[in-house]
């Protein structure tokens, strides 16, 4: 009797110990993020004025702003999303729904897993050779967007596969039993029911891409840009312009990198302010991901 009571007490103690360990582990992550935010805010919050967002870089720290950087980041992300989402979703759906399970599929799967682990600088080197020189796309927004698209492609593929796999097989059976083709089953059921998960994965991937610096420096992003890319809309026919795709660019992390490498302390404050803006951009994207997941989960009940 006594022996059993001791064992029960020991098991309960283990339970309590793990609960505390888990809490501490959670706080390590939370505190790091909080400390980072507070540190950046203390340094940079004074610089967060309206002119900071509407000014080009300058050699005078108090006049310098992040206009070209946040516009550049936004445009590069647009190209990245427009490229990585269709490619990644199509590849993910193919691998889950269509691919026969043979050695070729296995090889592709191993490759995608490896691709996710390739250092981003290697993507930069590849993009420099392929997009910048081979395809002559230049040191442009297009090159940068494509580079980051390749970088996040494996993440989008994996997220798509996970969400597609989460759609119950009974839904597919129901559609097939009514005489639906594979594509109809995918288009009418598998994709709509997995949209929430796919979107979440896409946004998580984009929020990784938004902070990437190394591959963009490799393909030749500028650090000092005092002009904006051409406008996407024009007054005359055909009203849209894709000139901006070929424009040179800078992005937020590169602007920060540039400012931190300057000797004047005032530029370091600018870097902190830009860092804060970048963090907030990322947090907003993650917030959208959480909201979308909630929305789609609520809408679809099995």
């Amino acid at each position, binding site marked *: 009797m006594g022996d059993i009571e001791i064992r029960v007490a020991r098991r309960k103690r283990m339970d309590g110990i793990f609960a505390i360990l888990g809490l501490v582990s959670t706080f390590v992550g939370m505190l790091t993020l909080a400390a980072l935010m507070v540190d950046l805010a203390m340094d940079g919050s004074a610089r967060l004025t309206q002119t900071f967002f509407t000014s080009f870089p300058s050699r005078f720290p108090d006049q310098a702003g992040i206009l070209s950087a946040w516009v550049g980041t936004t445009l590069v992300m647009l190209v990245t999303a427009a490229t990585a989402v269709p490619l990644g979703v199509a590849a993910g759906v193919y691998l889950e729904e269509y691919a026969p*399970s043979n050695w070729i599929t296995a090889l592709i799967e191993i490759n995608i897993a490896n691709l996710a682990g390739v250092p981003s600088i290697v993507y930069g080197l590849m993009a420099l050779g392929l997009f910048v020189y081979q395809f002559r796309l230049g040191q442009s927004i297009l090159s940068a967007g494509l580079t980051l698209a390749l970088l996040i492609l494996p993440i989008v593929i994996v997220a798509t596969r996970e969400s597609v796999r989460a759609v*119950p097989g*009974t*839904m*597919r*059976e*129901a*559609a*097939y*039993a*009514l*005489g*639906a*083709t594979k594509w*109809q089953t995918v288009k*009418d*059921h598998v994709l709509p*029911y997995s949209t929430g998960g796919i979107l979440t994965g896409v946004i998580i991937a984009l929020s990784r891409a938004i902070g990437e610096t190394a591959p963009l420096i490799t393909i030749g992003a500028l650090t000092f840009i005092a002009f904006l890319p051409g406008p996407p809309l024009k007054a005359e026919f055909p009203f849209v312009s894709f000139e901006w795709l070929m424009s040179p660019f800078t992005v937020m992390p590169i602007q920060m990198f540039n400012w931190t490498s300057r000797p004047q302390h005032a530029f370091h404050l600018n870097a902190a302010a830009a860092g804060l803006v970048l963090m907030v951009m990322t947090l907003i994207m993650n917030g959208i991901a959480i909201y979308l997941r909630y929305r789609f989960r609520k*809408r*679809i*009940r*099995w």
Partner: protein
Amino acid sequence: MELQQGLEIPKIKMPQVVAAKEPVEKGAAETTRPIIEVRDLDVYYGAAQALKSVSFEIPEKKATALIGPSGCGKTTLLRSLNRMNDLIQNVRTMGSVKLDGEDIYAPSTDVINLRRRVGMIFQKWNPFPKSIYENVVYGLRIVGINNRSHLDGTVEKSLKRAALWDEVKDNLHKSASDLSGGQQQRLCIARALAVEPEVLLMDEPCSALDPISTAKIEELIHELKESFTIVIVTHNMQQAARVSDYTAFFYLGELIEFGETSKIFTAPDKRQTEDYITGRFG
């Protein structure tokens, strides 16, 4: 149970169902014409043989029950009748299954078309997470029928045939997941009926339902077999006795005995059948 049935049946028996019924062209005298002929059917999952040289004929516009203990191959057989087994990897099928005299395993068979002729109801009801209306019309939409009045007509007809119309007619655009389990299963039946199949396969359609819902679906089977051929897999021998005209008893992948339900349940030829029916194993 008896009492509940007594309460429920008046609601289920609806004149509309009879009205929706199609005229029997082939003549009432020829009622035992086989619609499906299974010949020497072997099905393997990888190296494991699930069905061993099964041969029998399923009569048209009758309810045929497939019974037997778990793992006996009854579901495998059911799923080989509309080639749902194709969706599972490493399944090999040999022998032939003829629907109206045509081998459905012939290379020329269009599986998409086959599945429209042989509908299926699953053990766990699986309506799409869409509205009741969209569930019923899905089989029509995928062949490009989007004519509103045609779809409306099909929804009403199918839901009436599935004895669900009166319960949902005011909420056709409500989500199917708001319905009770029994209603969802009848919605799945309506969805299958909307494409006008010749054969309806039912894979333990009541095994997860309460007795009242089960009674409704059993009553429905009685109505439906006037217009459709029904093949039902069931674990429940009493259910097989209640709803079916013919019964096939499977054991370990083999068809032990096939015959009229009344005979199988009262005077089976084989010892194994009798042992199973009387509950000596299973």
